[in-house]
C-alpha cells in the first residue's frame, strides 16, 4: 500500500526535481499540473468513440503531448520574463499559476471526482506475503521505468548533457553555447509530462478531484527528503514518504489514543513533519548537493 502511493509521489516528485535541477525554480503549481494530466486523460478517454484500450492509449498519448506543450508554454510566457527576479516573485508566480490552472479545471470539469472507465482490473496482486493493488504495481513499474529513461537521457544524450551543464553552472554553460532558453523549456516540458503520468496513474487508482492538489504538496516532502536537485533522490524519497506515511501515520491513527482528543488523520500530516525534520537536520536532503554560501 505504502509503496503504491509512494510510486505516485515519486512520479510527482520527479517533476519537481526536473524543474528545480535545471532552472532552480520550485514549481508550486506542479500538483495542479498533475491533476490537469489526470482530468484531461479521463475526459479524452470518455469522449473518444473507440474501444476502451485504443481510446485509453490515444488519450494518454494526447495528454502527454498536451502536458509537454503546456509546460513549455508556461516557461515561455511566465517564467522567462521573470528570469533573474528575486526568489519571492518566482514562488508567488508559481502559486498564482496553480490558482489559474485549478480555477480553469474546476470551471471546465466541475468539482466532482472523476474516474477512468475500468482500464485495469481492480484486483489485488500478491507478491510473496504482500498484497498490492494492481494499479500500484503498474505505477511503481512506470516510476522505475521513467527513472531509468531519464538517467540514461541525462547521462548519454547531447541534450541531457547540455541540461546537466546548465544546471551545474548557468553562465558558463551559456557561454559555451548551451541555449539556456531551450534547456529551460525542455525541463518544464519534461516535468509537466512526468506530472501528467502521475496524474493518469492517480486517476486510474483513486480518480482525480481538484482537492487532490494537496498530493502535489505531499510530493514536496519527497523531493525535500531526496534532495531537491537529485532525480534518483526524488524517486527514492517518494517511495520512502509513501511507506512512512502509511506505516507510521497509519499506526498512530489506529493505535495511539491520547486522553482528551483523537489523532485521526495523522497520516495526512506525517509528510509535513518529515519535511520539518529533514530541513532541520539535513536541508539538502539525502542525495542533494550541499550548497555552501560565500559572500
Amino acid at each position, binding site marked *: 500500500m505504502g509503496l503504491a502511493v509512494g510510486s505516485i509521489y515519486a512520479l510527482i516528485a520527479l517533476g519537481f526535481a526536473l524543474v528545480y535541477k535545471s532552472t532552480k525554480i*520550485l514549481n508550486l503549481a506542479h500538483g495542479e499540473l498533475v491533476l490537469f494530466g489526470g482530468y484531461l486523460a479521463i475526459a479524452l478517454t470518455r469522449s473518444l468513440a473507440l474501444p476502451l484500450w485504443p481510446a485509453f492509449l490515444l488519450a494518454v498519448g494526447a495528454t502527454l503531448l498536451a502536458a509537454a506543450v503546456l509546460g513549455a508554454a508556461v516557461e515561455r510566457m*511566465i517564467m522567462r*520574463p*521573470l528570469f533573474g*527576479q528575486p*526568489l*519571492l*516573485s518566482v*514562488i*508567488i*508566480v508559481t*502559486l*498564482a*499559476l*496553480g*490558482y*489559474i490552472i*485549478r*480555477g*480553469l479545471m*474546476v*470551471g*471546465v470539469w*466541475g*468539482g466532482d471526482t472523476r474516474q477512468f472507465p475500468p482500464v485495469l482490473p481492480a484486483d489485488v496482486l500478491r507478491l510473496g506475503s504482500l498484497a498490492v493493488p494492481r494499479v500500484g504495481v503498474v505505477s511503481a513499474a512506470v516510476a522505475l521505468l521513467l527513472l531509468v529513461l531519464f538517467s540514461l537521457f541525462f547521462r548519454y544524450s547531447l541534450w541531457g548533457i547540455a541540461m546537466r551543464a546548465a544546471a551545474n553552472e548557468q553562465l558558463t554553460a551559456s557561454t559555451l553555447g548551451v541555449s539556456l532558453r531551450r534547456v529551460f523549456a525542455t525541463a518544464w516540458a519534461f516535468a509537466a509530462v512526468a506530472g501528467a503520468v502521475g496524474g493518469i496513474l492517480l486517476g486510474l487508482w483513486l480518480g482525480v478531484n481538484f482537492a487532490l492538489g494537496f498530493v502535489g*504538496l505531499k510530493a*514536496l516532502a519527497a523531493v*525535500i527528503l531526496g534532495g*531537491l536537485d537529485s532525480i534518483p533522490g526524488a524517486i527514492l524519497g517518494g517511495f520512502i514518504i509513501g511507506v512512512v506515511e502509511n506505516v507510521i501515520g497509519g499506526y498512530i491513527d489506529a493505535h495511539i489514543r491520547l486522553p482528551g*482528543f*483523537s*489523532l485521526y*488523520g*495523522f497520516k*495526512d*500530516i506525517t509528510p*509535513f*513533519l518529515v*519535511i*520539518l525534520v529533514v*530541513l*532541520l537536520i539535513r*536541508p539538502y536532503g539525502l542525495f542533494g548537493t550541499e550548497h555552501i*554560501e560565500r*559572500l
Partner: protein
Amino acid sequence: MSIRPAGDFKTSYARDMALLDTRFTRVGFGLLVALLLLAPLLLGRYLFLLNAIGIFAIGAVGLSLLTGFAGQISLGHAAFMAVGAYTSWLATTRLGVPFLLALPLAGLTAFLVGALVGLPSLRIKGLYLAIATLAFQFITEYVIIHTVGGSGGNVVPAPRIGGLQVRGETMFYFLLLPVWLVGGIFAANLVRGRVGLALMAVRDRDYAAQVLGVDLLSTKTLAFALAALYAGVAGSLFAHYNRVISSEHFGIIQSIDFIAMIVIGGLHSIWGPHLGAAFVILLGQVLKIVTPAVVALAPGFGKAATSVREIVFGALLIGLLIWEPGGLAMLLRKFKRYLDVWPFTY
C-alpha cells in the same frame, strides 16, 4: 526618487526623517484620517467592507514587515492568525478574560509562537524556509482541528468593553480603527528606524549584514515574531468580528491571499499592505456581484463562474509581477511623479 516642491528645504535630520515630510502629505494624511473617522456616515451599509479591509490590512502589515522588509518568505501567515483567533476564543470563553485583555494576549501568544517558528530561519533560508512555513501551516491546521476546534465552528462572544457590548458594524469599526491606525503607524516608524534598517540589511544579504554588526539571530526572530504579532491581533479581531471561527478560515488559501495582498499593494512600501488588502477585498466583493450578472447574460458561462475569483487573482498576480513588481504603491508613485512634472516629462 520623488520630486520635492520648490522651496522645501530640510534643515535638520529630524525633519528629513519625518514620516510626513511635506505639507501635501501632512494635509493628505489628516484628510485620510478624517475620512476614515467619518466613514460610517459615508459608507452606510457598506461599512462591512471597511471592517474586513482593516482586519486583513493589519495582518498584511505583519507579513509585509517579514517578507517585504526582512525578505523571509512565509507561506504560513494565516496560521499565526489562527493562533491569535483561538487564543482570543480560549481567553474570552474559557477563562472569562475581558476583550481588552484578550486582544493583547492573542498578539503576545502569536508573538511567542512566531519567535519559535522564526528560529529555524537561521539555518534554512529562501526556498527551504518557504517550504518549512508551508509545513507549519498544515501542522497548525491539524493541531487546531484536533485540540480546540474540531472541524465545526467555535462561537466567539461579541467584545465587551466595560459595560458596553460592541454590536454591529459601526461600533466594531470604531474598535478596529484605533488598532489599525496604531498598527500602521508603528510599522512605518519601525521601518525608518534602526530595526527597519537591520531588517532591510538582512533582506539584501544576510551574511553581509552579519559582518556589518547586525545580529542575525535576534533580527530574524524579531521579524517573524512581529509578523506573528500583527497576524495574531488581526486574528483576534477577526474572531470577535465574525463571531464564528473554524480552521477553514485560516487555511493555506488565506495564507496565499495575504501574499497576494502584499504583492499587489507593493512589497517594499509601508502603504502597500493597506492598499493591497483594500484591493483584494474589494475585488472579491466586485466579483461576487459581477459574476452572477454575467452568468445571467450568458448562461453557458455558469460552470466556470465558481472559480472566477481564483483565475482573476492568479492572472493579476502574474501580470503584476511581470510588469510592475512594485505593486499599487509604485503605480501611485509613478502617477504622482507624472503629475508633478506634467506637462514636461523631463
